[in-house]
């Protein structure tokens, strides 16, 4: 019996990086960790981008202090293990101090294969666009060097089209959130950071058509805004759903924010197949997409953005996830919670070691959801 597209995507979302590489042995995979990594460039250079998630969040590789977040520790443990030996390379986009160290450590271990990219922190600063363009240009050459491919216009155009289509489809899925169980949406979106992108788009097209007729309604569910870093598993989504909540806004690095782009910018985006067009496109998206806590455009922009998302989707509560030892998200939780509360939306700051939730979190979430009535 053939499995439906939805089933295939959900199953793929549960695989580890190693399992993904085993499933597609003819592909050259290139690992990355941050949503600011330009996947389009990887694909246009002939490789498949593969987001690296920690398999063991308790891993304590000696190179990183134990007070580093479990994402960095877990990914480093994976890199050091044999599981990722087949990666063509690793891309580190400069994010926080922890990831900066991880990049350096990986660079020391695999000097030829680790490519570092430093996007501007101040996305709207004077000179940021020109600076980032040069950074991307240098990266593009290095990616071609790794893959051994030459720059081809048709590959560039194809990569841009795949990502454009993917983001359109994700927007459609995002619109369906009120009707779809939250863990299902989380899986659908995470699969797109793991499997080969063309295959993903094909399956997601099918899934979106199938889900359009999906009858389950979210009536009676409490609308939730979820914000946080990478969530490599559905555990939290599942618990929210079990306790009567539904994630209507997903501002996590693995959720909608990963795919988001400023609609005004997207409308103006050229589909040209030139290298310049490719770099322009990536730079434009990264400089204008909704902020993560590691970047800055305007002081209250992130809070205001989340306020507007909460308003548009009619959420009643917000869950702000902080990965233990993560400074950027922990700092931001304070003003974001305050801003949402001013809008009448209660916020719960939930500190997690990884993406798994257990009994302790259940008690807190239950009390929180009950308080929302």
């Amino acid at each position: 019996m053939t499995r439906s597209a939805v089933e295939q995507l959900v199953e793929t979302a549960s695989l580890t990086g190693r399992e993904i590489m085993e499933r597609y042995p003819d592909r050259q995979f290139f690992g990355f960790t941050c949503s600011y990594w330009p996947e389009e460039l990887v694909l246009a250079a002939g490789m498949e981008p593969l987001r690296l998630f920690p398999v063991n969040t308790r891993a304590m590789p000696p190179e990183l202090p134990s007070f580093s977040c479990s994402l960095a520790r877990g990914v480093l443990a994976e890199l050091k293990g044999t599981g990722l030996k087949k990666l063509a390379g690793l891309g580190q986009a400069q994010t926080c101090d922890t990831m900066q160290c991880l990049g350096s450590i990986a660079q020391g271990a695999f000097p030829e294969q680790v490519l570092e990219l430093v996007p501007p922190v101040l996305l709207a600063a004077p000179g940021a666009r020109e600076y980032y363009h040069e950074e991307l240009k240098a990266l593009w050459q290095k990616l071609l060097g790794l893959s051994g491919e030459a720059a081809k216009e048709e590959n560039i155009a194809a990569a841009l089209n795949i990502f454009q289509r993917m983001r359109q489809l994700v927007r459609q899925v995002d619109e369906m959130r009120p009707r779809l169980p939250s863990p299902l949406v989380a899986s659908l979106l995470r699969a797109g950071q793991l499997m080969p992108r063309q295959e993903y788009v094909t399956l997601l097209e099918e899934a979106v058509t199938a889900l359009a007729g999906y009858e389950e309604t979210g009536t009676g569910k409490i609308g939730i805004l979820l914000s946080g870093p990478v969530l490599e598993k559905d555990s939290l989504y599942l618990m929210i759903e079990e306790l009567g909540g539904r994630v209507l806004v997903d501002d996590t690095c693995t959720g909608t924010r990963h795919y988001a782009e400023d609609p005004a910018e997207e409308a103006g985006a050229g589909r040209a197949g030139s290298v310049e067009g490719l770099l322009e496109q990536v730079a434009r998206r990264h400089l204008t997409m909704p902020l993560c806590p590691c970047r800055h455009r305007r002081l209250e922009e992130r809070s205001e953005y989340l306020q507007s998302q909460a308003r548009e989707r009619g959420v009643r509560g917000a869950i702000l996830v902080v990965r233990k030892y993560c400074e950027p998200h922990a700092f931001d939780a304070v003003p974001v919670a305050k801003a949402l509360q001013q809008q009448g939306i209660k916020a719960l700051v939930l500190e997690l070691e990884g993406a798994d939730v257990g009994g302790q979190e259940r008690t807190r979430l239950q009390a929180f959801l009950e308080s929302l009535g």
Partner: protein
Amino acid sequence: MTEKRSYRRLESTKELQRVMTRYYGMSNYFRYWGKPLGRKLAWVTSGAPVELLRVFKIHPVYPEQYGAICGSRKVSGELCQVAEAQGYNQDLCSYARAHIGSILRPDLAPMKGLPKPDLLVACTNICGTVLKWYEALARILQVPLIVIDTPYQPGEVTPQAKQYVLRQLEAAVVELERVTGVRFNEKKLDTIAEKSRQVTTLWREIKDLCAAKPSPLNAPDLFIHMAPIVVLRGTDTGVKYYSLLKKEVEQRVQEGVGALEQEKVRLVWDNIAIWPHLFKFFKMFTERGACFVADTYTGGWAMDFSEGNTMETLATTYTEVFLNRSAQYRARQIIDQIRQFDADGFVMHSNRS
């Protein structure tokens, strides 16, 4: 029976205390006279291009140094709890938490907290935390925030990074003109940058004198005497102070006088000082004749001011600081120090703050 001292005190320490008391007195003076006299005060990160502020006669005050003061006066714990009660996670940098706590509860804070600023200036060259810390300050205090983004440099400093930082410095000048109502004067910047160059050169030369055997200074000396390099770059007072210190250190070298009574082991220290237990901690080493003849932390301010137009120099100098570089660069730096100072080993301090 009195314990035998294994440690020599520097004469310059008295002058250091005078200089720093005057600096904090001056900061306090701004608390009352800044507004009527139309003089502005800024809170700045330790790696910010403070020379630009001095052109506009803006008095810089350093929350990080204040964090260290809170640590050495052992009030950090209480102040951190104040910040934690406001939702700041207890794993966040303790300098930031203590400082935020001092704003919220000045009654618990040394000097009743720092005088309130007219603006905030953060430069990302020392860590990513400062962006979030200063964003929090801007929200609490509702004053303008200038951030200079000095991109992390995994390899050699790139031309695009220099250009990007330069563009931001130019924009910062416009913002400073707006905040102060004073026109930018390039000549004045040249003069101030020249003083900074002299101060940082003197500091480097002082540090280099520790290659002598026995070493005239131990790391705690450097930690204590680095205060003016942080707060007085670009000033005559800074130049004068380090000239005095250099003389004393040179004299120690000429006379063969070491920081320790008897130097048996030479070590290199990596990372920030343990402020609350500075001497107590290092005593463990001094008692055994181990002297820290060099360190990476205080070297952060022994910058090499590159040649060229002053704005370009500032852009490059503040981007290439070691804290903004890769682990490989920093490892090379430690290896070079071990060689230059003929050290027997090094100690890496893993710091959570």
